[in-house]
């Protein structure tokens, strides 16, 4: 949509300004720069992660972690300590592995509260830096 807009508007602008040479030059450099760098906001760059995708990746991390009992039957409602048989230190280790996977750092306060797969997924999807 943006491209069609440019195509239709550029010649018109040039035609209008070309009467004065100075204005024409500045206008063409201006347009040149515009077309080189398509408008892109920092926040818009990373599309928000899909919840199912995040769940799948978290479950993959848990399976790769190896220590868990019932690796075959991990669902979003699975609890780290009860269903997977992880102690508090194992949970910490698992969350650090998840951090590595999504390239984020979960603050201590939040990490202490994460007890299930669903809670972890919710936190990751709400974190804009995750990828």
């Amino acid at each position: 949509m943006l491209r069609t807009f440019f195509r239709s508007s550029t010649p018109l602008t040039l035609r209008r300004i070309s009467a004065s040479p100075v204005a024409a030059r500045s206008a063409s450099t201006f347009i040149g720069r515009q077309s080189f760098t398509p408008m892109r906001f920092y926040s818009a760059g990373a599309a928000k992660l899909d919840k199912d995708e995040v769940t799948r990746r978290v479950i993959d991390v848990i399976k790769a972690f190896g220590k868990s009992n019932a690796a075959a039957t991990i669902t979003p409602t699975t609890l780290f300590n009860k269903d997977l048989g992880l102690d508090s230190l194992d949970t910490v280790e698992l969350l650090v592995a998840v951090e590595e996977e999504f390239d984020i750092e979960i603050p201590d306060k939040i990490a202490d509260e994460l007890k299930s797969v669903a809670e972890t997924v919710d936190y990751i999807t709400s974190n804009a830096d995750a990828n």
Partner: protein
Amino acid sequence: MVARLRGIQQDVIHFYRQCIRAAMKKPVETRPHFIDYIHSEFGKHKNLQRKDFTTIEYLLRVGNKKLKMYSQPELKDIH
């Protein structure tokens, strides 16, 4: 575990997290050595009484010093 961890227990958990994060910064080949070392160091005191605050505080202090030493980037492997 269901009851929320408080005070010194939380300090230990946070310290453990720092250790694991520091180990994750090491080269991939030697990373398991660091992780195993952390496990063995924590495992040594697995049977400590939960009210034995003096010992736990002492171990946290010693541990923090060790963490500082081992997390230096020049240190690439331990045995």
